[in-house]
């Protein structure tokens, strides 16, 4: 039997990093995720792993680049302003096709914003926050358990595709305490013969670069990356559905807002409103196809987010005008109550019924 522990999301994520065989963690303090660095500063040396408080998030992400380029499992975590600082490095990592795990414990912004949870970094995460054409695989945990599980998954996907993986959590899931189990994990064998470990006489030199100065070669590289992103879209879409079998209405929400929607769904169902929930687990690749299918079944979708309406654009893209897609959100670290969401839902149902 795997032991059940009570832990904070951030700490569960840190512990999972150790169990996933993370060789090196580089980070810089920022609320609400400083526990990760603190936890690993204490625990990583016991496992002979590298942990380092860098001088900035710019440095952290470039240390990750170096370590990942040398073939090691490397990771960093931060919160929104720090993730903004990392964008250049992430673009280089994607361009150079290095596997690594980046965690954003999203707080509300813009600017220095507040340390309270938010989902305002959705666009930055899924549309390519740095320069150039690239995508990260983006995993959105909705529980402490998932914050742990997605570390293994994240590292494995990163290795499989030689691509950065982002776990997009938020200040609430990172900070709250829940039960968590650390499942037994075996690290899949991956070929890293491309890594810069020192050139023996028996092979050509390896180099890690994102530079292809000739337009023809750059485009070839872009096409190669696109091919990879296409594979990711075909194979890695993950989502959870609750109560969709008989649903006439659908909540679409990820992470923390999906948790709140689950409560709202119970209240609405008690009132006789047949509503289901689709919770995207991968925000990239996005479950467009499933939403398109559900658009043939439900009368309306409501995207609930802790921002001004970002993911709703992807829901609309999927639904393509077949049914109304509405949005409800709070910002600034404020969270909607389930009752508030149900109230909004009822108003929308009446409105669409009348029109």
């Amino acid at each position: 039997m795997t032991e059940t522990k009570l832990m904070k999301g951030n700490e569960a994520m840190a512990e999972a990093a150790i169990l996933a065989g993370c060789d090196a963690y580089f980070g810089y303090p920022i609320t609400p995720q400083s526990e990760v660095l603190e936890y690993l500063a204490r625990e990583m040396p016991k496992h002979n792993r590298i942990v380092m408080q860098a001088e900035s998030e710019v440095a952290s992400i470039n240390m990750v680049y170096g370590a990942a380029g040398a073939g090691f499992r490397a990771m960093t975590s931060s919160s929104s302003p720090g993730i903004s600082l990392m964008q250049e490095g992430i673009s280089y990592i994607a361009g150079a096709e290095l596997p690594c795990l980046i965690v954003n414990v999203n707080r509300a912004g813009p600017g220095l914003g507040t340390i309270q949870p938010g989902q305002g970094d959705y666009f930055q995460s899924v549309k390519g926050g740095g320069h150039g054409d690239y995508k990260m695989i983006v995993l959105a945990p909705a529980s402490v358990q998932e914050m742990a599980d997605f570390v293994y998954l994240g590292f494995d996907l990163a290795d499989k595709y030689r691509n950065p993986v982002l776990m997009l959590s938020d200040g609430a899931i990172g900070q709250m305490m829940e039960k968590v189990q650390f499942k037994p994990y075996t690290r899949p064998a991956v070929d890293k013969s491309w890594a810069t470990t020192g050139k023996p006489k028996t092979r050509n030199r390896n180099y890690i670069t994102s530079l292809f100065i000739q337009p023809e070669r750059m485009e070839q590289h872009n096409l190669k990356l696109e091919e990879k992103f296409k594979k990711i879209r075909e194979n890695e879409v993950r989502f959870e559905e609750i109560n969709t079998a008989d649903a006439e209405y659908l909540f679409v929400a990820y992470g923390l807002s999906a948790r709140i929607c689950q409560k709202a769904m119970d209240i609405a169902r008690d009132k006789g409103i047949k509503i289901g929930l689709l919770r995207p687990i991968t925000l990239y690749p996005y479950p467009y196809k499933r939403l398109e299918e559900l658009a043939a079944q439900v009368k309306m979708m409501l995207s609930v987010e802790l921002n001004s309406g970002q993911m709703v654009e992807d829901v609309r893209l999927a639904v393509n005008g077949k049914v109304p897609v509405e949005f409800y959100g709070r910002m600034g670290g404020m969270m909607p109550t389930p009752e508030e969401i149900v109230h909004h839902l009822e108003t929308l149902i009446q409105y669409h019924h009348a029109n």
Partner: protein
Amino acid sequence: MPTEEHVLPDTALDVIAPACHDEEEYEMVYHKPTTMVNVAMHYCPGCAHSLVHKLIMEVVEEMDIQENTIGIAPVGCSVFAYEYMDIDMQEAAHGRACAVATGIKKLMPDKYVFTYQGDGDLAAIGIAETLHAINRGENILIVFMNNAVYGMTSGQMAPTTLAGMHTTTSPDGRDVSYYGAPIKVSELMANLPGAFYVSRQAVNSANAVRRTKKALQNAFKYQQLHKGTCLIEIIGNCPSNWKMTPVEASKFIDEEMVKTFPLGDIKVPKGV
């Protein structure tokens, strides 16, 4: 990934076989180190970058550490260093070479790791990463090519541009009351306890080249002994953007550059 299709841009890259034209009468006294890729470099004629590449790779050859050496190329004219040095290398984002080097070295403490950086790369955008790596005493070698301008982007002012020196962004000469004085990186960094060996050299004469080579040899030796950060500043040149012939550029170094950037060892370990 180094693949056959990954060739260098823009410049015609003829593979040059080291040839001695009259092998009967002449004795081969110099050959390119075997640790270099046998291609023509893209640098402007007389540019110091190519020479310093060769010096580093000579040391790697002599110490027989090709298998254990990882280099980090910067963003600057030497961005293609990995096309010339026949070792495993990583291309860093502009200014971040020391952070990348830290990431590598922390995980492979027994490998030789060096960065190769220009003055814009190291002393402007990347000074924080550089200073902190040195302060931590990362056991790496930082080769700092100071040519007092941004070569790659066509000669803008650098943090090391001399007072009064004309560049495309200081057309009337660097005004120190506005931009501050040129940063003496080596003197600044030598103050940090993590800096083990700091030396400023040049490559504009045969003697200068010999001294630079010696400094590089020392630095690699100290890294072998896990002594901490070695910083070798090399007063390079940029004939193209200085708008000088290579010979004039060499003279400019002796007559002007050394006034601000005096050559020699700045921090020498005792008893090594």
